[in-house]
């Protein structure tokens, strides 16, 4: 028997709607936490919304989003090709470091040469970091998750070490590198920023992020390479049987994913940071990339939206303490969103709300049993 598709059916089956529902639930859970802590929900969420909807606030959101979008693309690309790039963190760090080294040491070059050079070295550095892990996997069968976790930390300490080298280290007392050359900066001109009253770090990196989104979509959906990588991702053995070189595909996938993460690092450095500090713990852009990729359902355009959403939450969240709410609320909201995305199968029960009265009872009972 074919049932007529109702509105609820559509809601129950659409992944995009699942994500929206998850986001709503995330904010609801956040509201419950706020209420339990005795804080005003309206005030906190009002602050969150007002801080990202002004022109200046929105320009902040855009620049905050850039590294999250591109790091998210890196992880999403790896998901599509059957590898879990938990190493995006390390690739991000070496990318930022490579861009910083070029941006400082070759600072005399004209803008038109220096900026592409910075991007290129960052992408190569990230790609190398990814390929090493891929090589360990294809040559010695070493689990990529394990070596990625190790290489994340090696990258972290390597970056701290390079920041301490005299030619790179800041002349002042700061535990950081020198600032990169003006010629390596992606910032818009001061006059332009001031005339519109935008964020002082407003930069054209977001154009690169959009271009990267389209490029990744193109590679995955429209090229032979993308087809091969996806084939390996969905069934390694079938792909091999079909004549695809699996090992080479894994290396290619990790190289592209690593290059994207490295690019994310360069964009963050050249637009926002302009120098690299010596950190005591990982910054977490790569790990945020995992979250963004998951929220965007590993679809490049989904990742673009999810990255902007994440950037908005991070920027808005930094203003929460002005109304006495802890910034950590953002992690609870995002964590809840990701949790509901993971269990989005429960939204399928929505279609039983209207018809077939027997099933909703069973579904409800199961849900209650799960909660208990």
């Amino acid at each position, binding site marked *: 028997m074919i049932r007529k598709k109702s509105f609820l059916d559509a809601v129950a089956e659409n992944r995009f709607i699942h994500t929206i529902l998850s986001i709503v639930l995330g904010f609801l859970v956040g509201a419950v936490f706020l209420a339990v802590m005795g804080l005003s929900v309206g005030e906190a969420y009002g602050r969150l919304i007002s801080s990202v909807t002004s022109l200046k606030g929105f320009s902040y959101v855009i620049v905050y989003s850039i590294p999250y979008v591109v790091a998210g693309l890196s992880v999403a690309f790896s998901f599509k090709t059957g590898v879990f790039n938990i190493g995006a963190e390390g690739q991000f760090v070496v990318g930022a470091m490579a861009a910083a080294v070029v941006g400082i040491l070759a600072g005399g070059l004209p803008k038109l040469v220096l900026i592409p050079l910075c991007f290129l070295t960052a992408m190569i550095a990230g790609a190398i970091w990814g390929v090493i892990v891929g090589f360990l996997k294809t040559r010695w069968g070493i689990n990529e998750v394990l070596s990625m976790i190790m290489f994340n930390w*090696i990258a972290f300490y390597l970056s701290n070490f390079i920041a301490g080298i005299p030619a790179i280290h800041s002349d002042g007392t700061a535990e950081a590198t020198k600032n990169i050359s003006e010629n390596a900066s992606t910032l818009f001109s001061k006059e332009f920023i001031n005339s519109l009253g935008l964020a002082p770090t407003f930069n054209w990196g977001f154009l690169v992020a959009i271009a990267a989104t389209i490029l990744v979509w193109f590679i995955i959906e429209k090229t032979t390479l993308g087809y091969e990588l996806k084939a390996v991702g969905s069934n390694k053995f079938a792909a091999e049987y079909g004549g695809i070189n699996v090992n080479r595909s894994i290396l290619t996938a990790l190289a592209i994913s690593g290059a994207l993460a490295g690019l994310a690092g360069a964009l963050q450095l050249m637009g926002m940071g302009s120098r690299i500090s010596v950190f005591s713990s990982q910054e977490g852009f790569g790990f945020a990339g995992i979250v963004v990729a998951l929220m965007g359902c590993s679809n490049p355009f989904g990742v673009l939206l999810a990255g902007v959403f994440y950037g908005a939450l991070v920027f808005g969240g930094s203003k929460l303490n002005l109304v006495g709410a802890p910034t950590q609320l953002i992690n609870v909201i995002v*964590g809840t969103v*990701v949790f509901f995305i993971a269990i989005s199968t429960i939204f399928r029960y929505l279609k039983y709300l209207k018809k077939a009265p027997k099933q909703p009872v069973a579904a409800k009972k199961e849900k209650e049993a799960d909660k208990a």
Partner: protein
Amino acid sequence: MTNLINNLGIILYATLIYTTPLLYAALGSCFSEVSGVVNIGIEGMMTAGAFTGTVVAYFTGNPWIGFLCGGLAGAFFGMLHAIATVRLGADQTIAGTAINMLGPGIVIMIAKVMFNSTDTIPLEASMKIPRLFRGVFDTSTVFGRFMDNVFANYASTYLVFLAVAVVWFVFYKTRFGLRLRACGEHPQACETLGINVLRTRFLCVCMSGFLSGLGGACVTMAISTQFRPISIVGQGFIAIAAVIFGKFRPQGALLGCLLFGFCSGLKVVLGGSSGIDMQLISMIPYAITVIVLILFVGKSRVPAANGKPYIKSK
């Protein structure tokens, strides 16, 4: 010679300090992974345990109640992971990532409300996990100092080595262990033999949360005296790496954790005495892990059904 024995004592002391929390979490990870559920939420569960342990110890004054509650807090997040992955067939990586955000997010927010700071109030000495055999050894002699360094250790350290033996016994010498391992290899076959795959996995994931919580509590109740947002930075992931390193066996995870702990201990001594840059020395544990993997360990066979949700058919 005196110097060597002194240094060796310090290295071994640091090894045990670093190994203990990792080992708790790694045993937890073993439970979950071997039963067929990928758990990358270990980090979040450790953070929850680290906070809860030290807060409960602070208010009750009893370290053991705190330690246990740390484990229970971890188990709570383990249960969340189990509901999502075992009962609702969720993608295990996604659910684990959510736990890694929720765990720290929730406890740091509670810390902010309770203490008006993201750090908790430091524990007094009597509220910390006690050190056993304190003052038994004569620290005026070289040998005594060595023994004091190595054996006058926290009770939690002694407990974790005991736990390795218990987990090994459960895995390989009991009926439950056999079932648990079978669930990770071929759940359909288990079900036909009347084993309740979902219940076994559910229990194992909760157990992994409990042990991870204990590991987190060790960090804030033995090594340090307070919870801070940077108390747990990456130990959960290192524990997962140790389990893969140990080919998904508790005794292998022990070796993985000890190797990592030893390299970290080496770092402490080298950092003090040699002229090598501290940042480079800090890389040693990670680099050596990779090198040992290449040279001696090689491929780690993942349990066949690991990562695949088991959907019970009617």
